[in-house]
């Protein structure tokens, strides 16, 4: 029986980044009905910009802010310029359109930065404490705390702020909300900003915890989508639980022989299982 505690501790931090991305995806989907495949690519852009600022001798704090601001800007731009043109097409087409946005970002990052051995360093990397016999760096602790804090903040924002209320209205019915005077594009814009910021934070953290690579960070969106699926693209607490469960299970399976090599399938199994469970009764689509 292998000792699972170190894997549990390691998995929690990764899981937190899935949670951050997953929450961003859910918030955006609820407000504007777009499943954002570009969440990972936007995060990668944030990480690359942070890295560039640090490489040029810039202060670390500004580098994160710069990276996250870039992520917000890019996400907002897409939400304001491209997304409205697809507002009346099928939800799948809208999702596919974000994939092409991810491709554009991926090509851009590949062209500007290329693939080289890189790692984004945060000052919190050198601080650490011992927990259950495993050394935990401050970055991991911060990632985990951020994952929970941000989710609470977003939930409070949705429940108590006016924009949050309007977002929930949009989630129920876009047309009715528009008729009642909700400024759809403005609220949409807020959703894209929140999603961009969460993508940026998650990208910077992932680039530090794992590696700074355009391809890898772009496709880290898959576990985040799986987490969102667990939350039915609607429930934030369920998304958080899903993200944590996926990240931790993936890490815990590592030392298990035979199953170990297949552990990357965990997000997919979770998502498929969750979907099947949710739709366990036969339903017909009336139209």
């Amino acid at each position, binding site marked *: 029986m292998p000792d699972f505690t170190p894997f549990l501790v390691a998995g929690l931090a990764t899981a937190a980044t899935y949670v951050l991305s997953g929450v961003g995806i859910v918030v955006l989907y609820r407000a504007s*009905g777009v*499943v954002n*495949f570009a969440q990972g690519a936007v995060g990668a852009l944030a990480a690359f910009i942070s890295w560039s600022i640090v490489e040029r001798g810039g202060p670390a704090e500004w580098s994160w802010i710069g990276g996250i601001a870039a992520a917000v800007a890019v996400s907002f731009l897409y939400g304001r310029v*491209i997304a409205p*043109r*697809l507002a*009346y*097409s*099928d*939800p*799948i*087409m809208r*999702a*596919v*359109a974000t*994939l*092409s*946005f*991810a*491709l*554009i*970002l*991926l*090509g*851009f990052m*590949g*062209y500007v930065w290329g693939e080289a051995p890189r790692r984004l360093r945060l000052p919190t990397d050198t601080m650490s404490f011992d927990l259950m016999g495993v050394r935990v760096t401050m970055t991991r602790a911060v990632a985990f705390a951020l994952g929970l804090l941000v989710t609470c903040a977003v939930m409070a924002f949705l429940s108590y702020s006016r924009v949050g209320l309007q977002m929930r209205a949009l989630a129920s019915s876009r047309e009715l909300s528009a008729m009642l005077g909700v400024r759809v594009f403005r609220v949409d814009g807020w959703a894209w900003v929140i999603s961009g910021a969460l993508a940026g934070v998650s990208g910077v953290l992932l680039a530090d915890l794992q590696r700074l690579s355009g391809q890898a960070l772009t*496709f880290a969106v*898959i576990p985040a*989508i*799986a987490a969102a*699926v667990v939350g039915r693209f609607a429930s934030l607490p369920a998304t958080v639980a899903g993200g944590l469960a996926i990240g931790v299970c993936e890490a815990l399976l590592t030392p298990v022989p035979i199953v170990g*090599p*297949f552990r*990357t*399938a965990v*997000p*997919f*199994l979770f*998502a*498929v299982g969750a*979907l*099947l469970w949710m*739709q*366990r009764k*036969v*339903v*017909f*689509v*009336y*139209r």
Partner: protein
Amino acid sequence: MTDQSLEGVPPIRAARLPLRGIALGVAALIALYVLPDALSNYWLRTFISAAALTIASLSVSVLFAQVGMVSLAQFGLLGVGGWFALRISHGLGVPFEIALLSAGVSAALVGLIVGLPALRMRGLYLAIITLMMAGAIQVLISAFGFPDGGPGILGKSTGARLMMARPLIAQGDGAYLRYAIVVTVLCYLLVLAHVRGRPGRAWAMIRRSEVCALAGGVDIVAYKVWAFALAGFLAGVAGAVLAGGVGQLDGSAFPASQSIMLFALTIVGGAYSWFGPIIAGLMLRAFPALLNDFRVDGNIATMVFGIGLLHALITAPHGIAGQLSDLAGRLRRAVGGERKAGP
């Protein structure tokens, strides 16, 4: 959130299919006789891949245009078909045709499993669940790797790698391209037979309304499962054609993201038209090859691809094929108008 995939679906044009069939036949004959001799070897190999991808795109369009279901797992099924084709060809030394068919059948079985959730859901959820299955297939393929001539179930060689045997009548690239085109035409005929027969009518009803279909006595479960099996079969055949073209396959070439690309380009090409999948196949393989031939940086090519895809999604909901047929219709009207204006 309503599923709007049915908006703008044209009524079935079964009556006009013979004309299309003839056009397709003529196009195939031209492709068969002229193309292989006119192409350089680089383009020969590119078009072999494009032919395989055309079949794969056809499998997506069968599900999407006929039954109204979205599967984002078809490229993964292509990998499954390629895996079985390689394993059977290396392991048993059977002729290519048998490897091709068994690849189709095994991918059809896997496709059936992928399609099971479709009995319960559709729209975005179905798309996402199939995408997750594509991801699971990707993990399996990259953990097992593709067979390369060794013994055992996995067929991993410890010495030199073996190439998959091509059909006896098509050893060279030119002959193999002709072979691939014939296989593509046969796949089209298979789909045509379904669309014009009982399954086509049942699918049309399911697409319109499942309740109506049920009331009309259509066995929804059977016909949905059948559609997924057929689509899986086509994807498997595509995988075998691809494996025969290259001689081997690589595990990293079948990520889940490619399945989304295949779906996206099928839509961009035009899923409702018979030449949509051909456009999709060419865009997936010939277009990047063209950019590479012009020495465009691969990263720039990715960006161009993304921009083109976005543009097509915004401006051409019926795909390039839809735009082309609109153009043809306008021309026909213009010509007709002239005739009327004449004496």
